[in-house]
Structures are given as structure tokens and as C-alpha cells.
């Protein structure tokens, strides 16, 4: 980071809705494909955007366990919602990708990844934390995934601080939100209401700073900044869901045989939805396909899930044949073994697994039940 950035990184800039539009145009002008939230099929998903008008302007999401609905907010907010069924991993770590092609003559063509100039608009604190988790797994371990690395290389991130946490959000418990902390080029706090609509913007990198300057963003006034800060203070206080992470890893290790798992297995569909929507679940399987004439073989990677029987297949059979063992594998990985593997929890508190479970199984409730069950057993 240059000297200019060091001195100006704490500076707050002002963007009105037109200035925000110019930010998107400037990114596109610099050759970025811009991705952001859009409304599709009754939900807010991530897709390519060319203009701020394509964002879910004035929309809010109502979420509950196994429940998601959109409604009108009655204002013109660009980011008046939280996270939906998609996560940014679909761009960084695609659902299906060809790894290599082999010809019958033995010529091998490897996919070493393709660099793409991608800009993500509207990345939340929990999602930045999720990208950091993926970095630890796919970039910072002993094995680097070239496909992820290439897509990550030129990534430009515009983060958005969450001023209104959703019903299933518990990022505050996980220390990942509601404010974007690191890992962005520009962060935005949206202020809407009482006749005003603007963003307070901060630079998180040299590129972010120069972009803000290029679109002519002025410094925000003290009053503009303090309104944004008030919003964030309110946000901190308005969380409805929480997860007690105190000694959680040890708790789960002590209670591998907790009766809670058998009970949750009665409700669990083993359908994989929680893992597919999770922004940190990175498990894949590899398929090898051949052409009919046998001239070409291809190796493909696609998202897989620990809730699939075949996922734990080794010679002789699958290790986790019951729904109980699969749910336990997932929960203990997210909240315990992940810490030993990668140094952080695999859960960032985004709440997607709660919302998108068709039967509404709530990871925070199940963890809490395990905590209570231990106390009850001890009391006996």
C-alpha cells in the first residue's frame, strides 16, 4: 500500500445515488465484470449488473427458519436486505469446472485457471469473512487451487455494512459483522430516510481510493458520517439471533454422542441445501467422463456435500450411512474441527443454512440444545 493510501484510508467519502451509479460505471469502464444483488424468482441472488437500477431497490427480505419472502420497504434503499440463497463462492469457486482433458494419444490439457476481472458489489461483513475462510482453505494451505487463485487475483470488492441485520443473522456472535472489517477495496454505509439518501464510503486499498477519487467523491461532512455511525450502532443492538461460541469447540468434542443428534436426524432431510448455500462449504467431488468413441476423457469438479451418502464412500462402503452421522459431521466441522484445521470457525453467522433448510433446522438452536443437554445429563 502506498503512502497516499496510508494517510487517506481513514477518510470518509460521500456518494449520492448518482455517485454510486458512477462507481459501477467506472468499474465497468476499467474492464471489470460487475456482479451484485438482483431480484430473481422471489429472492435476491447474485448476478451480473450493468447499472445500480438493476439492484433490488426498495426491497427487503423477511427470513425465518425455512422461510424467505421479499417485500417492499417503502424507500429507495439499494441494500435494504441481507444475504440470499447465493454466495460469492459461485463466482470464485464455480459449481462445475473442468479440470483437465486427456486425448487418447496422451495429450493432457490442464485448466490452470482463468484470470477474470470481477467486481463484487454489496459484499457483507460475513461474506468477507467467508472469502477469508475460503482463502485459508484454497490459497494458504499446502495445496493451492489454481482456479480459485486466478479468479481471486483481480477481484475488486465493494463491501456494504449491514445497517439492518436479518432475522437469521448472527454475525455479531461470530465476530464477522455487521461491519465490514478487512478484505474490501471500498466499503459503503448506506443512509436512507428523513429525506436523505447517500453512502459514506471508505477505501480499503489503493485501488479503492483511486477509484473514489476518479469518480469525484468528496469528503463526507461530520454530520453525514455521524448519521452513518448511528445506523451502525443501532445495527449492533438489533440482532435477534446469537450463538454462544464460548468453549463451543470443546463442548462439541465432549458431546459427540449427544442425544440431540438423534433428534435432529428425525427432522433432517439430508438434502444438502445447508451445505450448498453455505459460503464456506468447499467440498467437491471429481467425475471422469469419456466420449463414446473413447478419444477424449475429461475430469470435472463439482460441488458435493457431506450430506450425500457417496461423499464418505471408501473401499467397502460409506462411512456415514445415517443422517445422524452426516448432520453431526457437518455441525462439528463448521463449529469445531474447522478451527483445528484452518484456525477459524467454518461458520461466519450469515444464517443461510437456517433460512434455506426446507424444514428450518437452526444451527444456533442445535448447538444450544447440545449445551443444555450436557448440563441436564450432568444434573442427573
Amino acid at each position, binding site marked *: 500500500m502506498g503512502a497516499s493510501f496510508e494517510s487517506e484510508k481513514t477518510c470518509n467519502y460521500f456518494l449520492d445515488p448518482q455517485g454510486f451509479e458512477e462507481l459501477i460505471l467506472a468499474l465497468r469502464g476499467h474492464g471489470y465484470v460487475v456482479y451484485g444483488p438482483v431480484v*430473481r*424468482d*422471489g*429472492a435476491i*441472488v447474485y448476478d451480473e449488473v450493468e447499472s445500480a437500477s438493476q439492484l433490488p431497490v426498495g426491497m427487503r427480505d423477511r427470513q425465518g427458519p*425455512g*422461510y*424467505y*419472502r421479499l417485500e417492499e420497504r417503502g424507500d429507495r434503499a439499494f441494500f435494504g436486505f441481507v444475504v*440470499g*440463497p*447465493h454466495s460469492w463462492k*459461485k463466482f470464485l469457486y464455480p*459449481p*462445475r469446472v473442468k479440470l483437465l482433458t486427456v486425448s487418447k494419444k496422451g495429450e493432457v490439457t490442464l485448466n490452470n485457471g482463468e484470470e477474470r476481472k470481477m467486481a463484487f458489489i454489496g459484499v457483507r461483513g460475513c461474506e468477507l469473512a467467508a472469502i477469508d475462510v475460503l482463502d485459508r482453505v484454497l490459497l494458504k494451505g499446502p495445496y493451492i487451487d489454481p482456479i480459485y487463485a486466478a479468479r481471486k487475483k483481480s477481484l475488486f470488492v465493494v463491501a456494504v455494512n449491514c445497517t439492518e441485520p436479518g432475522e437469521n443473522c448472527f454475525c455479531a456472535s461470530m465476530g464477522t459483522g455487521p461491519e465490514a472489517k478487512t478484505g474490501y477495496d471500498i466499503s459503503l454505509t448506506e443512509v436512507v430516510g428523513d429525506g436523505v439518501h447517500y453512502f459514506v464510503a471508505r477505501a480499503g486499498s489503493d485501488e479503492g481510493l483511486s477509484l473514489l477519487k476518479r469518480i469525484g467523491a468528496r469528503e463526507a461532512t461530520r454530520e453525514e458520517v455521524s448519521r452513518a455511525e448511528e445506523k451502525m450502532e443501532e445495527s449492533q443492538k438489533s440482532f435477534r439471533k446469537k450463538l454462544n461460541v464460548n468453549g463451543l469447540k470443546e463442548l462439541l468434542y465432549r458431546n459427540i454422542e449427544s442425544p440431540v443428534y438423534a433428534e435432529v436426524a*428425525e*427432522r*433432517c*432431510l*439430508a*438434502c*444438502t*441445501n445447508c451445505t*450448498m*448455500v453455505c459460503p464456506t462449504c468447499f467440498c467437491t*467431488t471429481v*467425475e*471422469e*467422463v*469419456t*466420449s*463414446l*468413441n*473413447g478419444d477424449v*476423457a475429461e475430469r470435472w469438479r*463439482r*460441488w458435493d*456435500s457431506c450430506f*450425500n*451418502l*457417496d461423499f464418505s464412500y471408501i473401499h467397502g462402503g460409506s462411512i456415514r*450411512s*445415517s*443422517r445422524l452421522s*452426516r448432520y453431526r459431521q457437518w455441525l462439528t466441522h463448521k463449529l469445531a474441527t474447522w478451527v483445528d484445521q484452518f484456525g477459524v470457525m467454518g461458520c461466519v453467522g450469515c444464517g443461510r443454512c437456517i*433460512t*434455506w*433448510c*426446507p*424444514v428450518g433446522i437452526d444451527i444456533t438452536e442445535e448447538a444450544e440444545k447440545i449445551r443444555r443437554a450436557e448440563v441436564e445429563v450432568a444434573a442427573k
Partner: protein
Amino acid sequence: MVRRKPKIAVYKFASCDGCQLSVLDLEDELLSIAENFEIAYFLEASRAVVKGPYDIGLVEGSITTPHDAELIKEIRKNCKVLITIGACATAGGIQALRNWRGSAEFMKYVYATPEYIETLDKSTPISDHVPVDFELRGCPINKYQLLEVMSAFLAGRAPNIPNQSVCVECKLRGTVCIVVAQGVPCLGPVTHAGCGAICPAYGRGCYGCYGPKESLNTNALMKRFLELGRSREEVVMSFRLFNAWAPGFREVEAKP
């Protein structure tokens, strides 16, 4: 020496012919299939018949008559590898709805002289009668899955036919879950993948065309549908379709 092309036979039992049509519908690949296989017996495509034995037998349809039950044993003897294609051959098909009532009463309504009809009381899958090497699901089958099974056979490898829920396919293509976002009952969470999750992509709940997935939990899904305002009878009827007789779906009853 020129390698002998494997001989394929395609057979039909009680069925609508939709799965055989899926084979013919492989228009872009038919020439390549003909280059790599000898299509030796496929009455839906040609009346020219090459004598067996055959390397692969593809069987469509369920066993519904005493004659069928004998014929499938002969076919099994004549085919090195026997693959069932579709819900009828794999699970008994829509015609297995008779299995709850028996065929006598239905025949009375359908045929003027039911005494001329010789039929079994139940419609049953091929695997109830002879050993089956691979069961390809679907009503109808996904023609690309069939192509994959045939390519795998030629290469001597296991076919990539994932044993997972339709939900995985929805998520891979980015479809928003209609149960969660619209309150639409959908059999996706208990249904075997393979179709590519077509119906939910168009706002319709999964009909369960590919039959039960492994480790399915119909009780939990039933409970969810009741919460969404469906009656127990309606939920049971949603399972009584092409794969009604498949173990896993068969046990779903109106009375818990």
C-alpha cells in the same frame, strides 16, 4: 483385428415407450452410437433383428403379465449386462398404482370382457424377477444419463450417475428454493437427482420422477407440507405417481 462392436438390444414391457423415445431422441449422438455399438434389437427403431446373445440389454417397462415374467428370464439369459431404463422398469411405473387394489376391479371397469385378460395382480420392477446390473431412473430417463451409462460401459468404468437429491441440482444451477421462497410443496429433498432439476426452475414442485433418493426422510417432508397447508391425503397422492411402488415412497400412508 477390428474390435467387434458391442451388440445392444432394447426391450419393452408395460410402459409408454417414452424412455425408448429418449434413446431415439439422442439425435446428435445417434451416428456415434451406431459407430460404436451394433443396434441389434430395437423394434421401436427397426424391424431388422440381429440374433442374440447381446452385450447390453436395455429394458423399458414393468412386469405385469405371466408372459412378461417368463420373457424377462429369457432376456436375462440372452444379455451379458442388463440395464433397466426408467421408472416402470426400475420401480413398477404409474401402473403400479394397481398394487394397492389388485387388478380385478380395475379390469371390470376398463374391459368389456375382462375374462379375456390375463394379468398379474401387481406391476413390479424388473429387479423383482431377475438380477439387474444397473438401474437408470427417471420418467422418462435423461437421455444424456443414458449416453453416460453407455460411454461408461465402453470404457469399462463406473457411470457418473450421482445418488443425490434434486436439491443439489437446483443449487448447482442457481435455482431459488421454491419451498422456502414460495411455500410450494416440492419432492426434491427426497427425490433422486438426474433430471437436472427442471420443474423447480419453472416454479413447480418436483414430482419425484426419479424416485426416492437414498436415506430419504419422507416423514419430515410430510410434516413440512402439512405446515404449508396441504392435507395428509394430498401429500400421499403426491407420492403416488410414477415411482409409487418404489421402496421409500411406497410406505408413505395417509394414516401415520
